[in-house]
Each structure stands twice: as structure tokens, then as C-alpha cells.
């Protein structure tokens, strides 16, 4: 596709648990990722974008990187080593009821038989994980687990005894079928009440073991809803959310922690990222702050509204602001082609003499 020896690399982030209009539901940013993968040589993205429960789309040039690892990568601390396949281990929360546990094990067996994935034997945690959900003042969902030690012991067993190279976690989440938050979510509105706790679980594992990891919640099936939103529908097709996680992890890149001579050839570092695409109101994440200090072109998308109001300009971050992902795709094509996107507009202002250093944005606000 390209004669330029530098692969055009795009990072695409839709933070989880902030009610993103596109990507805040059941893998509903996946069509955007598929389009971006057509204009990029490499797409670096994360489970919230790629996971649609029973639905998934394995993109050959996409790197599936969990959020903690993505932040470390963007900060230049960790590299990404692409792989052909990982042996995926499965951790099941002891709190999962026997029938529901069996459903998950059958999904894992199906992934082996139907998709040909490599899975290790599974581990059940030595105590219930105790997932607790929380919505913060900002509207973002967070959450914690009561027994992080039990989770870490289970993962360690998978890595040392079963020789897993990536880990899928299934934790029992509280069933709240009557809550307003869940009703809104099923109708494609509001914030995913589970997302924040899911991210904390996978962050804990990636931080501790530096291996690819992703999470699927175990929940009882919901009563059928004829008004279900298409954006949320992927999560109501089956008994589990696990298939997409197994597929994503089966080819997720391994993390490289050292930049020394032993660093494997082909490792990708943050300085390879040409462009970062994020929702315009969610610029306060660690990866965005890190890449804002590099030559990476940051593109903010207005249409993908979230529950937050943290725009790039308030943080002193320079971006190209666009209305939609369709427009963002155009900017990526222009950027890849070496064009200034403004040259494609009808009005091109004349150059001005450079007189003074452009003042940095002030973080003080004058009140008149």
C-alpha cells in the first residue's frame, strides 16, 4: 500500500465508562476502527473499541492493547511486539453460578473448535472477586473489586502452570435489571454502568504482570426488550460477552518493558504513532497528555459527545478539530499523503510574518 518505509500508524481511543455517543455501548466504535484500518498501515486501539460481546471483527493490521498498556505505551515506557498468536488463559470469578460458568467454558471450547484459537486450561479464583460499581460526580463510571489479591493469584497460576501468554478475566457483576442506568444503556443512552469496574480489573492485571489482558462481565440474561438500541444489541445475542475478548487477545501484542539491546526487533514504540483520534470532550486521559508532548497529530472529534467536558484547548493541547469520524478519516488520508488538511479547503489565508513567539495558553482566567 505504501512505499514510505515508515508505516502510517494511527491510535484510536474511545475511553470507556463516559457515555461516548459512539463507542460507549456494545462495540459500537468498531465500524470506525474498520474504516481507520483501511487508511492506516497499523491501527492501535483497545478492547472498548473492538469488543462487541458475541460480535467482533478481527482486523489484520489492528493491535488490541488494554488501556493500562496503552497509557504506558503512549508514555514511551512500554513497547508493543506484534505476535501471530497467544495462548489465552481464562480466569473465572468464584462468584459465577455453575450454569453461568458452564456457558463461559462452552464459549471457550467453541473458540477452540470453531475459530481455532489456542486456549490453556482455566483457573477459578480462590475467593469471590466482589465487584463494586460506582458512578462519580463527573458521570463517569468507576468501580473496584474487594479481592484483588485473589484475582492476581489466579492469573499467576495461569502464567506459571498453564503457560498462558494472555489472560481473559470473567468476573461476576451485579445484576441490576431494574435500574435507570441499565435501562438507558439498553436504549443507547447514558453511561455503561459496568465499564469503569471492567477497566480497573484489566488494568490491575496488566500493571502487575505486563501481559495482554481483557475482561468480560458475567451477568444473568436480561428480559427481552423490543426497544433495544442497535448500539447495545450486540451484548444481548448470547449468554456471555466472552467471544470478542478471546479473539482480541489471541493476537494482542506482547508488551516490551526494556529499550535495551535485548529489545525484540519489530517492537513498536510511541514515536511510531503518526496520529491519535479521540472524542473532543475527553482529552484528559494519560495517553492523550503523553502524546501531546510528541509530534503525533491529535485529531479531536466533536460529534462523539461524552459525559465529560475536558476539551484540548483547556489543557493547552494543539489538535485538528473535526466534526465527525468521516471528516477525521479525510484528515488521516491527507496527513498520510503529506498534505496540510487546510489546503483542501476553499479559503487559504496568506502567510504572515512571524514576529513573536506564539504565547502559551494561560491557565489563569481573568474575571471581569
Amino acid at each position, binding site marked *: 500500500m505504501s512505499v514510505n518505509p515508515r508505516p502510517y500508524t494511527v491510535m484510536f481511543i474511545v*475511553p470507556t465508562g463516559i457515555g461516548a455517543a459512539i463507542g460507549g455501548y456494545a462495540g459500537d466504535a468498531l465500524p470506525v476502527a474498520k474504516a481507520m484500518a483501511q487508511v492506516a498501515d497499523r491501527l492501535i486501539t483497545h478492547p472498548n473499541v473492538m469488543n462487541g460481546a458475541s460480535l467482533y471483527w478481527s482486523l489484520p493490521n489492528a493491535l488490541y492493547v488494554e*488501556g*493500562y498498556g496503552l497509557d504506558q505505551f503512549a508514555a514511551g515506557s512500554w513497547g508493543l511486539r506484534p505476535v501471530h498468536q497467544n495462548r489465552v488463559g481464562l480466569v473465572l470469578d468464584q462468584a459465577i453460578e455453575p450454569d453461568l460458568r458452564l456457558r463461559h467454558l462452552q464459549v471457550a471450547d467453541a473458540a477452540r473448535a470453531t475459530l481455532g484459537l489456542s486456549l490453556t486450561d482455566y483457573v477459578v479464583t480462590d475467593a469471590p472477586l466482589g465487584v463494586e460499581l*460506582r458512578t*462519580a*460526580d*463527573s458521570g*463517569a463510571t*468507576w*468501580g*473496584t*473489586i*474487594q479481592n*484483588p*489479591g485473589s484475582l492476581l493469584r489466579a492469573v499467576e497460576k495461569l502464567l506459571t502452570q498453564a503457560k498462558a501468554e494472555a489472560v481473559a478475566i470473567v468476573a461476576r457483576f451485579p445484576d441490576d435489571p431494574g435500574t435507570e442506568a441499565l435501562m438507558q444503556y439498553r436504549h443507547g443512552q447514558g453511561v455503561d454502568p459496568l465499564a469503569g469496574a471492567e*477497566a*480497573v480489573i484489566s*488494568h*490491575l492485571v496488566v*500493571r502487575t504482570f505486563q501481559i495482554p489482558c481483557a475482561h468480560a462481565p458475567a451477568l444473568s440474561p436480561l428480559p427481552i426488550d423490543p426497544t433495544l438500541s442497535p448500539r447495545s444489541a450486540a451484548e444481548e445475542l448470547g449468554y456471555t460477552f466472552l467471544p470478542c475478548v478471546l479473539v482480541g487477545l489471541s493476537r494482542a501484542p506482547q508488551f516490551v518493558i526494556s529499550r535495551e539491546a535485548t529489545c525484540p526487533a519489530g517492537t513498536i514504540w510511541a514515536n511510531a504513532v503518526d496520529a491519535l483520534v479521540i472524542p473532543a470532550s*475527553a*482529552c*484528559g*486521559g*494519560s495517553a492523550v*497528555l*503523553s502524546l*501531546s*508532548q510528541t509530534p503525533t497529530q491529535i485529531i479531536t472529534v466533536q460529534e462523539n459527545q461524552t459525559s*465529560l*467536558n*475536558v476539551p484540548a484547548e*483547556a*489543557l*493547552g*493541547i494543539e489538535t485538528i478539530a473535526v466534526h465527525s469520524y468521516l471528516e477525521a478519516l479525510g484528515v488521516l488520508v491527507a496527513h498520510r499523503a503529506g498534505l496540510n488538511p487546510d489546503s483542501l479547503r476553499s479559503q487559504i489565508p496568506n502567510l504572515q510574518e512571524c514576529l513573536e513567539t506564539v504565547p*502559551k495558553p494561560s*491557565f*489563569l*482566567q*481573568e*474575571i471581569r
Partner: protein
Amino acid sequence: MIARFVSIEVPLKDPAELQRSILQALQSQGEPLRWAITGIKVDKEQLSDGAHRQIAQIEAVVLSPTQFAIPFTSVTTV
């Protein structure tokens, strides 16, 4: 080890300094696991030149080694 939710406030600075300040402030409460700036507000307190500082509001989950930590802490301005 426990995982707990915290919210803190840090004066707005340029991105590199801001990131350092946030991590430093969170590390005083535990090991940062997940965090984000979730809001920006103007400080009510007026500076000597009449201007007001802008404040980044951060929400986070941190890991603490102790079993005796308070589960949910209040806002701390750093």
C-alpha cells in the same frame, strides 16, 4: 491490597507538568491504577492580580497496601 476510588484537584499547567503533578498527587494516596481529568473548573479564590486559577478535577482508582484505608476519600486539592 485494596483498590479504592479517589478524586483530587490539581492546578492546571502545561500537559507535561500537569501529568507529573497528577501522578505525584495520586501517589500520595496509593499506586495509581486508572485516572483521568474529568472536569476543569475556575478556582473561587482570587489571586493578587485579580485572575483566578483553573483547576483540573481528577478521578482515579488507586491501590493501597493496607486493609484499613477508608474506601472512598473526599476531594483533596494539591
